[in-house]
């Protein structure tokens, strides 16, 4: 299968890329890892007139903690996340998710930022960013603005990005002590999209939940943030009752559709079970275990 014809641009700087996006308007599309975009082009689900390939731009492949935030650059690939000792030791929900993205060959090329900009409701990173309460930096030739992950996703494959903007960085509040996270995913086989997945992030404080983040994958028109479940945990001792209550609220927040991967009831129940398990695992890790 061949994509529909398009013009190809390979700018050498971000400014050059942004200028192109400005000129091209709706016809311009940023190409990063291409592991979602190229299949879309081949299936003719998308046929932009121009691709702006950012792979030739230097210094976009980074993951670093700076000024109170973990920063992820546009060319930081899933594989690098999978291998990162920083993520393994301090950002558990990301370290859990990375090896569960697609398959190993796709992870070699696909990027976190590209996946988030693609905004597939079955994508994993969106739920992770919602749980971590991430900020997304949207840059255009006229400047940049920062949007919370919860305000970024508008629906299936739809985001707050304007045609002339690129998602230039993801910022996650730097991990402090007593944080723990987990990502649980149910998939039929390696490389399949999630049937259901749940991202959990906990910040403990003096034996109580300081803040909790819960993101849901593949159970709504976009990645969902289970805000009532998060609120119910705040300030609580994380005992069985608190965990059960939050898991129930997360299941209520899910808006699954029945398909070949499962019924509405089944998917909702998986959300409940995974939220419970995720909270227990995150709690264990926040206390320095697991």
């Amino acid at each position: 299968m061949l994509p529909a014809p398009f013009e190809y641009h390979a700018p050498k700087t971000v400014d050059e890329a942004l200028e192109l996006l400005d000129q091209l308007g709706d016809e311009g599309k940023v190409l990063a890892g291409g592991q979602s975009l190229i299949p879309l082009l081949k299936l003719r689900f998308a046929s932009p007139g121009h691709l702006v390939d950012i792979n030739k731009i230097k210094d976009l492949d980074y993951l670093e903690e700076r000024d109170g935030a973990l920063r992820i650059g546009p060319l930081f690939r899933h594989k690098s996340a999978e291998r990162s000792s920083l993520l393994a030791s301090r950002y558990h929900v990301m370290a859990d998710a990375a090896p569960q993205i697609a398959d190993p060959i796709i992870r070699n090329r696909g990027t976190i930022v590209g996946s988030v900009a693609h905004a597939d409701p079955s994508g994993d990173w969106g739920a992770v960013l919602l749980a971590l309460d991430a900020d997304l930096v949207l840059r255009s030739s006229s400047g940049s603005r920062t949007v919370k992950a919860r305000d970024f996703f508008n629906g299936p494959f739809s985001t707050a990005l304007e045609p002339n903007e690129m998602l230039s960085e993801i910022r996650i509040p730097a991990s402090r002590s007593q944080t723990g996270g987990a990502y649980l995913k149910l998939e039929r086989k390696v490389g399949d999209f999630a049937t259901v997945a749940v991202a959990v992030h906990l910040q403990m404080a003096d034996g109580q939940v300081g803040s909790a983040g819960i993101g849901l994958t593949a159970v709504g028109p976009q990645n969902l943030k289970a805000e009532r479940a998060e609120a119910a945990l705040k300030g609580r001792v994380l005992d069985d009752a608190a965990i059960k209550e939050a898991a129930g609220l997360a299941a209520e927040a899910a808006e699954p559709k029945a398909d070949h991967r499962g019924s509405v009831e089944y998917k909702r129940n998986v959300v409940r079970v995974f939220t419970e398990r995720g909270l227990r695992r995150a709690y264990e890790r926040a206390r320095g275990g697991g």
Partner: protein
Amino acid sequence: MGHSITVTVNGEKKTAEVEPRLLLVHFLREKLRLTGTHIGCDTTHCGACTVLVEGIPVKSCTMLAVQADGQQVTTVEALAAGGTLHPIQAAFKQEHGLQCGFCTPGMMLTSIALLQEKPDPTEDDIRWALSGNICRCTGYMNIVKAVKSAAVQMKTATATPEAATAAARS
């Protein structure tokens, strides 16, 4: 509009004029007539079209040829350079690591990248690394055996050339 690209394929510089929408797999198969790289699902699932780009396994149906401009690409044709089977090929032959052979080029290239990174992989490492390559004959048992066997051969070969020759004769 055509783009002139130069890609180093199996050590040789190849220059061609390509349409931006041309996929790397079509560049290899149709422009260069390197048909060892197979097209399976054509939807980024099966891994039959896997090649090494700068030494890293990539599904060549999911990369544009223009993106390979200035890069090194390795296909299955490079493995038996000079007519001698690469240890991974010898091991697939020895251990019956193929039935129909359609997935084999991708399986071998992914395995080579694994062995370069982990010369002594566990069975789990091998199964994990190959989880993006699908074998329709479901010959996974022997594929895993072949990779294990190749690992031993390649380690011996790097340790001492004499030992490698001895191992090959045994």
